[in-house]
């Protein structure tokens, strides 16, 4: 393993720490959006797929790359859209008016 390979291990370990710390602090309220958000972010494999589909390494590479691009794009587009759709629904005390009004009756 090269020097670069070694440093990549650091990147992985540190990212693992960051992930652990961030995820443990996400409240249960947002666990479903969390799942779909990590899903969308995992679509980053698009980056590898694009190179495979666009470089000139023979027909098989291109076709496999194409399928990979499709699969990854589905995750990116679908994942972000659904996460945003969900988060849009979460509202804080949007209608205190309505309920306090109720109490007054």
């Amino acid at each position, binding site marked *: 393993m090269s020097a670069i390979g070694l440093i990549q291990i650091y990147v992985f370990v540190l990212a693992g720490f960051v*992930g652990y710390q961030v*995820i443990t602090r996400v409240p249960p309220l947002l666990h479903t959006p*969390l799942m779909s958000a990590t899903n969308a972010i*995992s679509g980053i494999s698009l*980056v590898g797929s694009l190179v495979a*589909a666009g470089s000139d390494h023979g027909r098989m590479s291109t076709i496999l790359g194409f399928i990979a691009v499709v699969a990854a794009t589905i995750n990116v587009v*679908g*994942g972000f859209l659904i996460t945003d759709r969900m988060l849009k629904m979460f509202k804080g005390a949007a209608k205190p008016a309505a309920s306090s009004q109720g109490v007054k009756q």
Partner: protein
Amino acid sequence: MIRQYLVEGSYLAASVLFILGLKSLTRPEQARRGIQQAMIGMLLAVVGTLLHQEIVRYEWILAGLALGTAIGYPLGMFVPMTAMPQRIAISHMFGALAATLVGIVEFSQHGAHLSAGAMAAVGFEVLFGSLTITGSFMAFGKLQELITGKPITFRGQNAVNMTLFAVTLGLFVYLIFNPGATGLFYLMIALALVIGVTMVLPIGGADMPVVVSLLNSYAGLASSATGFAIGNNVLIICGALDGASGFLLSILMSKAMNRSFSNVLFGAFGSGPAAGAAKKSAEGLTVRSTTVEDAAMQLAYARSVIVVPGYGLAVAQAQHQVRELAELIEKKGGEVKYAIHPVAGRMPGHMNVLLAEANVPYDRLYDMDEINGEFERADVALVIGANDVVNPAARNDPSSPIHGMPILNVDQAKNVIVMKRGMSPGFAGIENELFYNEKTSMLFGDAKSSLSKLVTEVKNV
């Protein structure tokens, strides 16, 4: 040179934006903006990649992006919230598919020239990728009820699985030192695909959420391995984030269900064995059923109501009716809170999204620990399609399969109204004493229609 800086710069920016995006999920008010930042990060990374010098032809890329968008858009916009578990399962399949294919391309290009480290990365990538592909598809099938939700077991299953696993692992190790063995590489992929299937077969449909989360972390590890293989840090980072998320959520679910990982994965639970014990505590006890009119009276005059939603609410899609009822009660001067058990429903946060969809403000939703002390002061606990999460057997009956799982203290409320269709058990397949409690009245029927009737009645009180 400049070009390389731009590419790398875009990856670094994307990594930071992704982390900040996930971090924003720790605070509901900021979550949406954070995720939009993550989207920008993704856009940057994609644009950056298109500058990559190896990319010479764009037609396949554009076709792929277009097709992916065409499929992804409806998956994002029109899938109902109730179908989220299977939606998420299938998306892990897509993620793993992309990782695996990139691994195959990498292998087919460099093949025998891969260093041991690079081969280990590629091997890891296709191994985890492949088993996640089929595993996620099976999970999807079970959740979507394309395949029976029952655990499928056969004699010698464990022996077969172990053998498969050992052979695949052997191939993996062999390939690290002999990366030229192309045939064995594809054999390894084929076996990993089979393992994905056999791994999920014996697990009951109801345990799928844990499996899906676990597959999420596998997909993450496959992404990270891709990053190692093609030397891309943003992939390593996203993979690690993904892996951590999947792993932590599956642990959380197992814990809240008071079960160990191995019990979930090898227990074939939620089906046969437990069902035998189902009727055991029901003997000699009677259920008191109530009418919509009576229930409406109770709710209309209650000062404090705690709503306990469960999986049945999602099945009935009755979230809007719940909110309507709650608003009516509040109009009459009562106070309504929602008690959310960590594993109510079929995925983490299930009840929260469901109620959010119906515009219930999230500060009315209380986690189990926050609200458990308040039940004793509540006039009515309104249990809507929840079962296991309010089963006192978890506290009282050491022989119960859910013994030790923390539950909502519904039985401490002054009155309990339970809405469900019949007496069938919930996910864990066991009888629930609460239904026989003298404080409890059962309002039988589909939650949606019962709630609609309740709304009409309460209006008239």
